[in-house]
């Protein structure tokens, strides 16, 4: 039976630092990437995501642990013998070859017959809508076109896994949005496992089936876009993905998967537990701005915080508010302008209530 397309078992990668010290870029990383999955490695620069990708490609060998591709341990297999192909960050197209020669390169190295080679090169270029560009040079193409050539050059080899290292990083915003959709569509068509490195959380959320959020060489959370956005399991993930508010407090009471947290100033809020917590422990409650609603001052209720509007920003679809709590902390609130006239009632200086449902807030340790 074929297990996972890519599996990492307790993989470490240590480098020699500038002062001769050992630096661990990847720390005991274990991942299972299923066949046909669009998987993203997401994290800030220096988090070890690119090193992880390079270990799958074979450009780096793990210091410890094992990388398996389609269930086969890779050991010290060199890159050119691995059933994977890579789309490089700056495409790394061969400048002295035409587009056709670039795409044909991998097939020539694998001694594919001339007729089949020509057919597959033609198909690959058609797939990325670059038919007729065979005789051009990489320099004569725009960034987006070069990006598509890099894709064709990798996919023409029919790899079992396609690795993409920040493939859209060098494109401007509009083109990036287009390519995101195109990549996703392409992946569904070819059905190949895509492993994708990015630091752009929005890109990861829109494209991936599953995401591994990495920081300092560790995969903090692995899950679908919804899981990672709605149920972050730690403060870093909550903070890195989208915008959020943090409220520090102590656990007062536990009940049915929810915790009652006492905030500074004696305020009490209920929030769902992402991790097990114990009564009396210091915790952080995270709740995203769009889950908060503003109400005129009313009688105190649970999960209702009183504050003063300090800033209001109208951006068309939404209005963003900053509300200062009695403790001095600023909460960011985002309200949808379904009925614009009604929604913009809160003005800077007004005293208001901020409410949220217990299910939309998570309790995090640390």
């Amino acid at each position: 039976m074929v297990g996972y397309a890519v599996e990492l078992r307790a993989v470490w990668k240590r480098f020699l630092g500038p002062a001769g010290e050992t630096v661990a870029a990847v720390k005991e990383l274990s991942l299972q990437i299923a066949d046909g999955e669009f998987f993203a490695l997401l994290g800030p620069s220096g988090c070890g995501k690119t090193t992880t990708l390079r270990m799958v490609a074979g450009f780096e060998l793990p210091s410890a642990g094992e990388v398996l591709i389609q269930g086969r341990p890779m050991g010290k297999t060199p890159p050119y013998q691995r059933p994977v192909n890579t789309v490089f960050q700056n495409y790394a197209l061969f400048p002295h070859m035409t587009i056709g020669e670039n795409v044909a390169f991998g097939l020539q190295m694998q001694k594919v017959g001339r007729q089949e080679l020509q057919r597959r090169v033609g198909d690959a270029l058609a797939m990325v809508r670059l038919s007729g560009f065979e005789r051009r040079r990489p320099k004569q193409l725009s960034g987006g076109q070069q990006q598509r050539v890099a894709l064709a050059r990798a996919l023409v080899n029919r790899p079992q896994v396609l690795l993409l290292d920040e493939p859209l990083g060098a494109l401007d915003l509009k083109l990036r949005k287009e390519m995101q959709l195109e990549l996703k569509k392409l992946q569904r068509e070819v059905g190949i496992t895509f492993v994708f490195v990015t630091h752009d959380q929005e890109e990861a959320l829109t494209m991936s089936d599953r995401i591994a959020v990495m920081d300092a060489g560790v995969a903090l959370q692995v899950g679908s876009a919804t899981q990672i956005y709605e149920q972050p399991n730690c403060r870093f993930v909550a903070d890195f993905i989208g915008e959020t508010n943090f409220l520090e407090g102590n656990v007062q009471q536990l009940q049915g998967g929810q915790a009652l947290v006492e905030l500074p100033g004696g305020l009490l809020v209920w929030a769902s537990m992402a991790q097990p917590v114990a009564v009396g422990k210091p915790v952080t409650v995270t709740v995203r701005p769009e889950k908060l609603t503003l109400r005129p001052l009313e009688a105190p209720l649970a999960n209702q915080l009183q504050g003063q509007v300090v800033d209001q920003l109208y951006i068309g679809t939404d209005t963003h508010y900053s509300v200062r709590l009695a403790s001095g902390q600023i909460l960011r609130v985002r309200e949808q302008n379904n009925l614009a006239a009604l929604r913009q009632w809160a003005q800077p200086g007004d005293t208001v209530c901020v409410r949220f449902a217990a299910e939309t807030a998570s309790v995090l340790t640390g």
Partner: protein
Amino acid sequence: MFQLLRENRRWQGFLLILPALLVLGVLLVLPLGLTIVTSFAQRDVDGNVIYSFTLGNYWRLLGFTATGWDDLYLKILLRSLALAFQTTTIVLLLAYPLAYFIARAPQRRRNLLLFLVLVPLWTNFVIRIYAWVMILRSQGVLNTTLGAVAGLVGLPWQPLDLYPSQSAVLIGMVYEFLPFMILPVYTSLEKIEPALYEAAADLHANALQTFWRVTLPLSMPGVIAGTILTFVPVIGTFVVSDILGGRQVILVGNLVQRQFLDARDPPFGSAASIVLLGITLVLTLYYTRRFGLGEEIAAG
């Protein structure tokens, strides 16, 4: 006048190239023209040039002399060509791996290594070639060292008869022109994006295939520049052959020098240098056309 200069781009351009034009005109075009004219002239018994028009000097170079067939000068020409080809080939084979090694070394070590390549050039050229006499002569450094080693191991030892000889000239020229190959090859190797090597490996090319399909084609501008920088001076050299060949190894350069200084036959010397110039020009033009200098440099 100034108004004209301010508005007319052609005049501005002309003014800018004027100094170079003067230098080239006085130091290149004029002497070259004189040489061409002289090569068709004759000399009288006292060694004075008589300006007339004769192809006699060229016929003599090709072997048709007044006293019958003599291929002395043809042999000199062929020897120079052969030596230039040998030198260039050996220099390329030695320089390329070294340039590759330097280009792939860590950034900080690269500068040190390049510095080491250039250090010998700080010493006068003639002194460095004389140093090779000290190394290669029968009682020199090389022979005494090899002799001592042979004595220790207990092998019979016959000193190598390297100096003076054509091999000594070859060694001297390889030594002299190595840096002129290393530097341009290094420059074009260093410009190759490391990701391209990884891309080749990723596309199932092994090390040898990567070299033939990626590294070598992308370093061709440096190889071409290096071969021209080596071949052209080597084919016209006379100092190295004079010192290390010990009057045995006569090249075109020596021929020209001796016709002017010793034999006092400037017309014949001029004809020899024009033939040398022609050969160099034809070979260089063929070479750059064949390997597409312009396009490679534009693409790199």
